[in-house]
């Protein structure tokens, strides 16, 4: 029953959002053209969107393969911002087309801001391997409960000054 209520809410919430493509195109009449990818899709659900540092979080990953596969392998990867509890890899084995598979993960978040869980999906089909990568964002509040929306930026990034990002050349 709990799931019924939750999923009813998810359904309504999604209807309200309309699963609108979140890319805001400056030209509203133009449709966004994506690069091709391996024929696998993923959705995710995050329990407790009000997560704070050092709290555990449950995330449900739902995969759906668009072709028959001989094996479907999921690999999770994070940095020190997040501690995954349990296995980081899951093999689903042979899957017919249009099959949905669920992987539940538990994690403890160590840093405020937007933390990503990288999900690599590998499909084996007729001895050919194809992969697709996803990133699941987790927005972690600070311990004082304030919403932290800052991006945890790459440490090797150089800050822009006056519209220029000056990177060092090597003299040869």
């Amino acid at each position, binding site marked *: 029953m*709990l799931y019924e209520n*939750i999923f009813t*809410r*998810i*359904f309504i*919430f*999604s*209807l309200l959002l*309309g*699963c609108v*493509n*979140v*890319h805001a195109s*400056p*030209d509203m*009449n*133009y*449709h*966004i*053209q994506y*690069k*091709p*990818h*391996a024929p696998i*899709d993923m959705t*995710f*659900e*995050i*329990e*407790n*969107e009000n997560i704070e540092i050092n709290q555990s979080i449950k995330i449900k990953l*739902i995969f*759906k393969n*668009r072709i028959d596969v001989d094996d479907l392998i999921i690999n999770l990867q994070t940095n020190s911002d997040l501690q995954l*509890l349990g296995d980081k890899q899951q093999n689903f084995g042979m899957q017919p087309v*249009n*099959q*949905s*598979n*669920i*992987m539940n993960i538990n994690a403890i978040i160590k840093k405020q801001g937007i933390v*990503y869980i*990288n999900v690599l999906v590998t499909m084996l089909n007729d001895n050919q391997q194809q*992969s697709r*990568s*996803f*990133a699941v*964002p987790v927005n972690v509040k600070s311990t004082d409960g304030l919403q932290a929306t800052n991006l945890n930026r*790459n440490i*090797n*990034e150089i800050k*822009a000054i006056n519209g*220029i*990002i*000056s*990177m*060092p*050349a*090597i003299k*040869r």
Partner: protein
Amino acid sequence: MDRFFMQCIYMPCMLCYFLVLNGCGSSDSATSVTTSTVTVADNTSTTTCFDITIAYTGSSKTSPLCVTNENNGINGLGVYRFIRFSLVSSQSVTVTVNRTSGLNPADPDIQILSKGNRIALSQSFASNIETLITSLNAGDYIIQIYDDNYVADNLKLNVVRNKQLDATSTITDDQPKPIQTLASGCTSASNIILGGKVTYDRIPHKTNNALDYNNISAQPVRLAVVELICEGSVLLTTNTDVNGDYSFTAPSNISNVFIRVKAKMLATSPATYDFSVVDNTQSQSLYVMDGTAFNIFAVDINNENLHAASGWSAVNSAYSSTRVAAPFAILDSVYLSMKAIVDIDSTISFPALRINWSVNNTTSSGSNAAGQIGTSHYNGVDIYILGAENNDTDEFDDHVIIHEWGHYFEDKFSRSDSIGGPHSTGDIIDIRLAFGEGFGNAYSAIASGNPIYRDSLGLQQASGFGIDIDNNNCLNAGWYSECSVQSIIYDIFDSSDDGSDSLSLGLLPIYNILTGNHKNTESLTSIFSFIKYLKDAESANSSVIDALISAQNIDVITDIYGDSELTNNPGTLDQLPIFTSM
């Protein structure tokens, strides 16, 4: 348990909802990793039928049309069907759509298209009837019936774009030679020659599509803007040539200058272009590479060389310093994209284009300014390229960059009626999407000179995704397949005959069709319109083109609407005719 929220990644609405609802039965295990399998019902597509009536003074015609909102797991975007009609004079036209069977309520919506542009739209909330009244001039028109509850993005389904070049993006300063402006405090009575070579680390792919960090090579930075900076100001500007070499006639006896190489290609003659690589997470600031300061004496300097390093650490198996090479690798793929066109149209004028890349650009969807770009894409204005290490980096995936540049080219010089969205080479998709993506894939092979499309990704960029563009054995081959489209276009281009391919026409006839009749087609842009016009232009090769088409399960094309397509339905769906004529 607190409340859940859900986010979709590249999945249309109903597919998202369907998965969520089916997930209700899954385990709510407290263990850290659990798995379960959800059986997906086969009958997830819904067919709804309507009577379509077009009425104007002295005329009223009604035709049935069934629309299948395909959600069969192949591709939730679905395959559309259309009504087409012609007017010989200006009329006030009433289009009425009345549901006869299927989904109830259906809430049909109507849009009328002319040459790919939406000219009328009606999307009221009437439950089963929709009426559109509009004035139309003489001409050919297409009606699309859809239900925006079914297909995400459908309200943005169309395409009203100014195909004229943006005046602000065309370089008007017709100065093909380097600008030589002397700055205060940096002058001299005599000059010397100052030059060098600019290179960047190129990381190739392994055969499994991963990046091969053991075979990094230095490659020339081609046609990039180079500046001599003196006392904080630009003293001289030039470009590297195709070998990465640059040269200034610079004042002698000045001190503390340095060389700046911009991730930018800029020219005004004979071809006009302005391509730059910027950081979408830092207000679209431009990437540049700066050399160390040096003094210029009264002797020539020919070895002021600059190199952009990848930042990769073999010891750490990670990027451990600034990824200077990345913007220049992207710029080089843009060079290849542009060169293929300039080789056949030397005076072409490209509208300015920014390619947005950041080490924070990840496959999560959200704010572009935060790097949540979803995937590498073109949005009608800019290109966005992934860069998040261990997730998906595309700066060395030249086919990905050229594919997206191909969308830019199609948008600015040809016409794309594509509805956009997710796609794979085995998917059954809308004719417009199939053509656009198939062209993008084919162009990536054409411009790069390599028919093997490679896309590296994952932990340490050690995984990947690949497509053999020249492979004619397409899963779900047909007019609804991007694989079929890419195979046909590439075979028209290439000089390597295989299977049914005995054509070697090069890029020029493809370019001429795309920028000519295909751009102005009365139909929607698809393999039908493209091939019809190509056969008109290459009548001597008509039978060879037919053989290529037949090899992809497409009936011989004789018209722009695909009326000749009589037998090849997508999978089990009945989608023929694609255009119902009234």
